[in-house]
């Protein structure tokens, strides 16, 4: 009889109108490795954030070791022996490994830090769990894999019984992933209970004892590892194959956007390596990939915001490799940035001001350097109406809009630029279904007009629905190229995770 170390019952979590968790009930047994799998936005991170006290549940109950609890902050959760390795590491860059681990529970000698004992204790800890580190190394000199190890040790130092990993392999290289999985197994063997959030099914099959599959905020299945396989899990995760739109066959024209051997080298790492891609007139080209594999840098290089280390970018046959953003835009490119507040808008600016960006030179809005405010207002109203943005008036600040409406406005601005090329990154992140379909229609309409669209998205279904051609980006390299219908989600998924082509063949048979 295994003991339930924690249990969450009927958890609901409401963000505004979005139900992120819908009646979720899960539990974890002592010494078990539990996997939570699901697509992006399925609610698996949310439920664990609730357990860790980072979010408050709208409804539902939590029991730890049979005792009813309510965590308001992570320190409450920590006091009950729950620790979480988050995707964003919470480390102090120019401090040493040992100092990071002991923070808040420092080893003292009166008022002073006891450096010697700190190092010794951390060393002992790392030896006990077989997690090798150099206690006196600075964090800033540690590669990502080591930093993660520090995070794990930090949690172990606080003697956590339950350790939650949130997509821990997202930032790691394959070798580092292997060693992480080993770590997880040995932690479980030493009596810790583990929750692993992931959407990488190989990892699940490698370590899990038990698996919950989540979709759209709900737990849709619970399986023991022995009674399932990746095929079934993949099906459960996606649920159904999304109804394919009736998309007319593409009429590809000449090449509008092309890169040749595009590479970006940063801090001794290849962010992008020899990327060759092209977008023709009248087609939507999708870039599939797990985020963090170079998509952000690719879009920045394509739009002139970042200078590639090597290689060339051609826009409508003209080389624009190191040209300014303005040259890119003037040559016929519009760009929906993946981050709507960092790049894509001025949060404190009015809607009309945000809509005007990159259009302020057009004769429509500008006469001899003077702006035609009436025309701008009218135009903004038109966009708001056409794209169904819920806003009070054009003078409202964009930060007062909900995320979805802000995204619609930004998408509207760029689509209405009427340029031959549109680079479109995560155009539907965090917005509701209706708005998503509307934006998809707009993208397809652009294609009908003979424009070339490059679509970067971490939503595989979005890529599958819209793209005429798909490139898979893995670790900054193109890992595959497919025509519409020539590939299924599973194959793409495996390529996105660095699987090889022959593996995918094997699965097909």
């Amino acid at each position, binding site marked *: 009889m295994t003991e339930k170390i924690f249990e969450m019952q009927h958890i609901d979590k409401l963000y505004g109108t979005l139900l992120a968790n819908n009646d979720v009930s899960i539990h974890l047994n002592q010494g078990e490795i539990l996997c939570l799998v699901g697509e992006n936005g399925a609610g698996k991170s949310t439920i664990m954030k609730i357990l860790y006290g980072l979010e408050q549940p709208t409804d539902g109950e939590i029991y730890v070791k049979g005792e009813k609890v309510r965590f308001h902050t992570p320190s409450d959760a920590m006091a009950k022996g729950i620790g979480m390795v988050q995707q964003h590491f919470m480390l102090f860059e120019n401090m040493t490994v040992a100092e990071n681990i002991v923070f808040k529970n420092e080893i003292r000698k009166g008022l002073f830090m006891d450096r010697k004992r700190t190092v010794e204790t951390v060393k002992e800890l790392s030896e006990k769990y077989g997690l090798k580190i150099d206690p006196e190394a600075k964090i800033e000199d540690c590669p990502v894999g080591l930093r993660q190890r520090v995070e794990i040790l930090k949690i172990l130092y606080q003697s956590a019984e339950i350790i939650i990993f949130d997509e821990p392999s997202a930032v790691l290289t394959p070798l580092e992933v292997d060693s992480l999985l080993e770590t997880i197994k040995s932690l479980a063997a030493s009596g810790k209970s583990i929750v692993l959030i992931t959407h990488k099914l190989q990892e699940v099959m490698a370590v899990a004892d038990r698996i919950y599959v989540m979709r759209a905020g709900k737990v849709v299945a619970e399986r023991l590892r022995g009674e399932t396989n990746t095929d079934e899990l993949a099906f459960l995760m996606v649920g159904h194959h999304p109804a394919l739109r009736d998309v007319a066959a593409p009429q590809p024209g000449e090449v509008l956007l092309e890169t040749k051997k595009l590479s970006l080298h940063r801090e001794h790492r290849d962010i992008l390596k020899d990327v060759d891609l092209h977008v023709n007139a009248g087609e939507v080209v999708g870039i599939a990939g797990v985020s963090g594999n170079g998509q952000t840098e690719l879009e920045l290089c394509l739009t002139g915001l970042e200078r590639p280390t090597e290689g060339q970018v051609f826009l409508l046959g003209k080389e624009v490799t190191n040209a300014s953003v303005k040259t890119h835009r003037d040559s016929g490119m519009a760009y929906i940035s993946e981050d709507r507040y960092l790049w894509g808008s001025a949060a404190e600016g009015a809607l009309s*001001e945000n809509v005007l960006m990159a259009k*302020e030179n057009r004769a429509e809005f*500008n006469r001899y350097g003077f702006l035609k405010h009436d025309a701008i207002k009218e135009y903004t109203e038109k966009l708001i109406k056409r794209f169904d943005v819920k806003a009070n008036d054009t003078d409202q600040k964009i930060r*007062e809009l909900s*995320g979805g409406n802000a995204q619609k406005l930004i998408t509207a601005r760029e689509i209405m630029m009427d340029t031959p090329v549109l680079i479109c990154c995560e155009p539907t992140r965090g917005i509701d279904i209706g708005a998503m379909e509307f934006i998809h229609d707009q993208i397809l309409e652009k294609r009908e007009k003979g424009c070339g669209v490059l679509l970067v998205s971490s939503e595989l279904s979005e890529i599958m629905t819209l793209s005429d051609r798909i490139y898979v980006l893995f670790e900054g390299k193109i890992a595959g190229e497919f025509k519409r219908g020539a590939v299924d989600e599973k194959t793409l998924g495996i390529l996105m995770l660095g699987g090889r082509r022959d593996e995918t063949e094997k699965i097909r048979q």
Partner: protein
Amino acid sequence: MTKLKKFGSKFLDALGQPLVAVLLSLSVGAIIIGLSGKNILSSYAIMFKGAFGDGYYLSATLQRSTAIIMGGLAVCIAWRSGYESMGGEGQMIFGALVSALIAYYMPGPGIAKILVGLAGAAIIGALYSVLSGWLWEKFSVTFIISTLMLNYIANYIASYLTTYKVKDPQSRDINSIQTGKLIEEARFGKVNGLFQSDGLKETALGQYFKDFNVHWGFFFALLSAVLVYILLKKTKFGYQSKMNGLNSRFALYGGINARGMLYLVMILSGIAAGLGGAFEVYGSKYRYIDQMIFSTGYAWSGMVGALLANFDPFGTVLACILLAGLSTGGSAMQRSAGIPVETVNMLEGIIMLLMSVKLLHLIVIRRKVSKEDRLKNEAEIENGKEAEA
């Protein structure tokens, strides 16, 4: 939302905070007056009368406000674009000195002296401002250090020049450190006799304006405010600079040239400050007197004014006139009630302190958006900011 409500919230947004700030600081002033054992109401009455009481006092206030307004406009241009330059003082000092020298030494008719002098002031102001922009762009020397140091340097250099190189040849007094006095033709004319026609002379309006006598400089400052207003609110430049100030990454994303923007902004704000110095010379002092800008704190009052108006040019004019009124009224209070005029400096400090915090946002605006949405949006925006840093 109804029209009235909308207007109400706009009004609250634009004027609520400045009003609260000014009123609170005046209450602090009242406490100070009370502590010095003077009658609060009558002191404030004297102050008001000394600032706006009749045409004579109004003139003094408006003349004083001239350089303050120009300093405020310089701050509007720079800060709205995201460059927190505090170099108005140094630019104003050099503007004043150069305009005084040109008008004194250049041969030719008075109008030519003035025009060339204004051009010289604008150029030197712009150059000095560009210097701090260059220090920022090339060497990442922050504006707070570069502009403040440059202010001190400007004051000492101007002081050196007036003491040793360009001292008034007429003056025998060893202690008067100043340049030569400008001839009548090389000064701004005065506007007077407003509402003094036969029909109006006896009315209250005519009586009020009986002693009204203000140099052109003030009207040039008003004109500058109109120009800055047009520049900031109506032109492409104004739009681009505002976006740069709100989110410099967004500006880059939209294709705005960041470097060009920096220098253009520095030039324009330098021109405004430099001209402010020239107006003070041609309108009030008719020469450069050592410390004339440094000790009066015109540029600083201008900064407070611009802050009060949230960098709106017309609002800045009003706020600067109000601040100038505090000073002239303060002098009157000093004369009759014995309360030092420096009280006003303190009040300005308090106004600034209160303007640093979004007082009303803390209370009113937060309620408008539902809490969850706000937190989520703010978290996203914060993340953006951090990534930027």
